[in-house]
């Protein structure tokens, strides 16, 4: 490293001045190592989830045969007095939950007599019951039934899957959009009737006329629903005629309509590009599709959407609130013991446990504010709450309260950093105090305010506890924004990546199977936070360049 310096005459070489450097440097190193280690662990555990690993056929000494994926291996814990070399055992994921009940099995490596990778083995991902590992037995369409040659069975299955998927999409469209619209319209008329009833308008002829109109509309909608339902039945029947039959390794047979198949592939025959294709497709499903099977499969798209929307809503509230409070504290208020104690109180607010904010949000926003809104504007829906329960608006407001100290403190610091000379120059030009703040002080403080916003967003996006009681659910059927008027449904409950991690990781009936999803969701949440921060930092960088002598 550095060459030894000759000791200067008359002065002892300073032997200890490197110690602080080593000490501080190594502490920073430890911190970095922990962060990198955490990220590495999450990525190593998470990113492998979607890779199509080979399917193993394992024969055990007692004659049982299993077909499954290697999940993990471990040393068998042994009593201390035995000194043999430790044996290993392997956890296989054998899937087929509907057949076996359990989808994992431990196999002692010593008991295995035979281990192969059957080329025709398929992984079947389906809408229900999780993955199925087995073989294609036959494929049946209204026109033909193929069961002789494995290659032909596979070809027919591949060929018939896309039309089946189209049929399924058409059925889903009718179920969700067409029937959904009819239901929404009927609900609107039912609520209108209820409103008339609440206003005691049914006694007068005008009210009665309205009542007749709504009732006619409901009858009309019922007739339309009957037609749609008949159509839907026919479509379902037609769809159910295209079926595939799969057999497990020990001869259990399942027969399912092809539209229930999400994905099917033969992992032991896939080429490397084929594997990459399956991997990317599963990754796409994870990011862009809604979850299936109690959140343990499918994607997390609604949770991503909920997290981003809630964070943006929160920023929308917290930034003006924080700026105004900081402006008053720093620019207008007379500095004295009162302002000092307010400042201390604001700082302490940041230390209140977040669940306390959650309880406050539930009591004040959901029950008090929401309940009042319901009584005033939505009495016909009671006792079903509209705004009176948890919702994305209340959750965002709660988080805004939680993060407002961060913005206030950052903004105050930014205001203090604006040179007093600028304020005096503005006042000396004949500007009022408000003009000075609005035109000179605030623009100079914006980068600092954005720093506060970034911190607030990072804190808000990662917060879970207060959300659990103010509007997050494990599965929200509808997003807070959709194509049904009024398009923005701030009263709706929503999904959140942080809560998703908790739910999948600790509330799932099948923890072992969903563990990998937890890592992926964590990775995604980190990604979302990083993206939001990068966006804010980008804006801040531009503003800084503008303020600091760049082109205007």
């Amino acid at each position, binding site marked *: 490293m550095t060459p030894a310096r000759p000791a200067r005459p008359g002065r002892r070489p300073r032997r200890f001045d490197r110690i602080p450097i080593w000490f501080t440097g190594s502490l920073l190193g430890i911190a970095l190592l922990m962060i990198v280690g955490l990220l590495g662990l999450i990525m190593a555990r998470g990113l492998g989830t979607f890779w199509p690993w080979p399917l193993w056929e394992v024969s055990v000494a007692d004659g049982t045969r299993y077909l499954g994926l290697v999940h993990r291996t471990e040393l068998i814990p042994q009593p201390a007095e035995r000194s043999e070399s430790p044996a290993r055992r392997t956890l296989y994921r054998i899937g087929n939950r509907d057949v076996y009940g359990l989808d994992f099995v431990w196999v002692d490596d010593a008991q295995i007599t035979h281990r192969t990778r059957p080329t025709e083995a398929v992984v079947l991902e389906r809408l229900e019951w999780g993955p199925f590992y087995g073989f294609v037995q036959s494929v049946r369409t209204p026109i033909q039934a193929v069961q002789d040659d494995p290659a032909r069975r596979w070809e027919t299955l591949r060929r018939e899957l896309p039309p089946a998927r189209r049929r399924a999409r058409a059925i889903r469209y009718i179920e969700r959009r067409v029937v959904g619209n009819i239901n929404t319209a009927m609900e609107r008329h039912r609520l209108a009737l209820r409103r008339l009833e609440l206003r005691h308008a049914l006694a007068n002829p005008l009210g009665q006329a309205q009542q007749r109109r709504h009732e006619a509309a409901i009858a009309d909608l019922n007739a339309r629903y009957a037609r749609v339902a008949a159509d839907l039945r026919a479509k379902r029947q037609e769809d159910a005629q295209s079926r595939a039959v799969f057999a497990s390794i020990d001869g259990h047979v399942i027969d399912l309509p092809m539209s229930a198949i999400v994905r099917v592939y033969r992992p032991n025959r896939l080429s490397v590009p084929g594997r990459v294709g399956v991997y990317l497709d599963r990754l796409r499903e994870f990011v862009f599709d809604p979850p299936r099977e109690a959140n343990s499969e499918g994607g997390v798209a609604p949770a991503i959407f909920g997290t981003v929307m809630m964070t943006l809503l929160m920023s929308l509230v917290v930034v003006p609130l924080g700026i105004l409070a900081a402006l008053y504290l720093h620019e207008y208020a007379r500095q004295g013991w009162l302002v000092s104690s307010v400042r201390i109180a604001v700082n302490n607010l940041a230390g209140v446990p977040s669940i306390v904010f959650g309880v406050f949000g539930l009591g004040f926003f959901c029950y008090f504010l929401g309940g009042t809104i319901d009584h005033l504007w939505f009495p016909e829906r009671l006792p079903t709450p509209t705004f009176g329960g948890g919702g994305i608006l209340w959750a965002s407001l709660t988080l805004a309260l939680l993060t407002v100290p961060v913005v206030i403190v950052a903004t105050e610091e930014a205001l203090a950093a604006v040179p007093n*000379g600028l304020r005096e*120059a*503005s006042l*000396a*030009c004949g*500007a009022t105090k408000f*003009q000075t703040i609005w*035109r000179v002080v605030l623009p100079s403080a914006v980068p600092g305010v954005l720093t506060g916003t970034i911190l607030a967003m990072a804190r808000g996006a990662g917060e879970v506890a207060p959300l659990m009681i103010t509007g997050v659910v494990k599965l929200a059927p509808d997003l807070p924004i959709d194509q049904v008027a009024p398009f923005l449904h701030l009263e709706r409950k929503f999904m959140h990546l942080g809560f998703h991690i908790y739910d999948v990781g600790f509330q799932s009936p099948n923890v072992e199977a969903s563990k990998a999803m937890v890592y992926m969701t964590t990775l995604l949440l980190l990604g979302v936070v990083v993206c939001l921060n990068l966006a804010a930092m980008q804006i801040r960088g531009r503003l800084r360049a503008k303020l*600091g002598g760049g*082109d205007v």
Partner: protein
Amino acid sequence: MRPGLLLAVGRPLAVPRPVGPGGSLRAGEGPPPTAIDLETVSVWYGKVQAIHNVGMQIPERRITALIGPSGCGKSTLIRCLNRLNDLIEGIRIEGHIRLHGQDIHDPTLDVIELRKRVGMVFQKSNPFPKSIYENAAYGLRVNGEHRRAVLDQVIEQSLRRAALWEEVKDRLHTNALRLSGGQQQRLCIARAIAVEPEVLLLDEPCSALDPIATAKIEELLYSLKERYTIVIVTHNMQQAARVSDDTGFLLMGELIEFGATDTLFTTPQDARTEAYITGRFG
């Protein structure tokens, strides 16, 4: 729009070349009218008295210099003239300051209006982090002037008067913070005179500048006194001698001597003034 602005626009843009440093004083023209009249002004910061009973008549359209050692109250006094001291908590001002006969502490007088009539340039150049154009336009904009043609014209005129136009006319929309220190200070002068004040206060405007930039500002002041009453605070006695018509010497918050610059510098009446200008203290 204020009527004064129309007049300002109509004025000729050309400014006569200033007489060089050390030029003749306007002797023998009779006493000029008073612009600002200070009468027994005292200022306290909390319990500390910073200004003691200062009384002086600042003449119109001339340059009045305030000199004195650091901490003698020069800046405090000049900041009283546009009531910028109002911002400081715990300050108390007694006595009367009249601008053209009107008491500036009169409760019916709008302080914003006063500051439009009394412009100020500070020791540290403080352009806003905006474009050169927006800096010069600031005073008009806060006044509610939005017409582009008027702004363009007034900005050109004030930048010309501040002797900056030729240097920046091609980059009016670049950030003012990219200018050099001397240019920034001239921009601040342009910003102050864009609203056509009656009085221009300068608080040590050259203390952070090199000699060349200082010379430019001094020339500029010389040309500006055609239009404005100028009060300049400086601790540089050569500068006071070069540019000012009248000089006041402050010491420990007291006005020791006030009179025509050449009289004060050649035959000071007070022994302390003489000690200061000959460099025996301060």
